[in-house]
C-alpha cells in the first residue's frame, strides 16, 4: 500500500488524533501505520540543516580523495591531507543553521575554502587551515579580511557576516 502525505499532513495528524489510536486499542495494521508515522514525525523534527552539514562533510571527503597528491591544480599545489579535511569538518560543525550552503573549493596550499558567492559584490570566503582561519569578503562597497584561531565557537565577525548576508532569514 502506498500513501501520499505531506509534511503538514503528518504534523496535523499527529497533533489531532494520532495519539488516541494507541490508547483506543486499534488493530495491528493501524499500529504499524502509526509506528511508521511516528518515525517519520521524529525525522521531520530534525533540523533541515543536518543534511546540509552532512553533505558538506561528504564533499570534504570527496575533495580529499580527489586531490590527495601534489600538483593537483597544475601549479605545484600541496595535497589535501587528513588533517586539512578534519579541520574543515570541524569548521562545518560550527556553521550556523539557516545559512546558504557554501561552495567548497580546494586551494593550492592543500586546504579547503568555504565560499558564499551571491554576485561580484556579495562574496565571502573562509579558508580553513591547520593553525588559523583566513577570511575575506566583499559586501557591497565594504571590503574586509582577517584571520582567527579555530576554537569551539565560530568567530563573531564571521558568524555575523554569514547570518546578516548569507542566511535564509535575512
Amino acid at each position: 500500500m502506498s500513501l501520499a502525505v505531506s509534511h503538514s499532513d503528518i504534523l496535523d495528524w499527529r497533533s489531532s488524533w494520532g495519539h488516541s489510536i494507541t490508547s483506543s486499542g486499534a488493530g495491528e495494521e493501524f499500529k504499524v501505520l502509526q509506528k511508521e508515522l511516528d518515525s517519520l514525525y521524529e525525522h521531520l523534527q530534525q533540523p533541515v540543516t543536518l543534511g546540509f552539514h552532512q553533505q558538506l562533510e561528504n564533499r570534504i571527503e570527496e575533495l580529499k580523495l580527489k586531490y590527495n597528491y601534489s600538483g593537483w591544480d597544475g601549479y605545484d599545489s600541496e595535497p589535501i591531507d587528513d588533517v586539512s579535511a578534519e579541520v574543515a569538518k570541524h569548521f562545518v560543525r560550527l556553521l550556523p543553521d539557516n545559512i546558504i550552503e557554501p561552495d567548497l573549493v580546494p586551494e593550492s596550499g592543500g586546504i579547503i575554502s568555504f565560499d558564499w558567492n551571491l554576485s561580484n559584490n556579495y562574496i565571502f570566503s573562509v579558508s580553513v587551515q591547520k593553525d588559523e582561519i583566513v577570511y575575506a569578503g566583499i559586501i557591497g562597497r565594504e571590503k574586509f579580511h582577517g584571520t582567527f584561531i579555530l576554537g569551539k565557537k565560530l568567530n563573531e565577525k564571521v558568524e555575523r557576516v554569514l547570518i546578516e548576508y548569507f542566511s535564509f532569514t535575512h
Partner: protein
Amino acid sequence: MSIFHLLTDRFSKLPVRDEEPLTHYIFVDEHINKTTHKAKHQLFKPRKNKGNDLSTFRIINCVESYIWYLSKRYVEPFSKKKTIARADFPLAAAKKAQLKINPDGNPHKRHLNLENWPTDSSACKLISMEIANASNLILKNE
C-alpha cells in the same frame, strides 16, 4: 595557429601597459564556477612554493590559437595536465592591488609574474577575489 604568427611575434619590444590583458591557465574543474561562468578566486592565489608569485602570460595582439599554444608549449609540460580553460584579466587589476609587475620573459617572452603579494594571507585572499571579479573565463574547445 600559423607559422606566420609564430615567426612574427615581436611582442617583446612592447612596454607593459595598464590596459593590456593577462591570462592565467586553468587545469581543474574546481576552479571554474559553472553557475556564474567565472574563474574562482582560489585560482589567483600566489603560489607560496613558487616564490609567492602568480604566473601569467601577456596576450596582447595574440590570436586565440596562439594563446592556447603558449599553455601547451610552456605550461603543460610542467603541470602534467591538460589546460581546460583560462582566465583573462586586465593588468590594471593587478596594479590596483599594488602587485609588482615583473615581465620576466621566462620561459617565454610573454611570461609575466605578479609579485610582491602581502605577507598577510587574508589580504592575498581579498586581492585574489578582486582579480577574479575583473576576469573573464574562456573555456578551451577541444
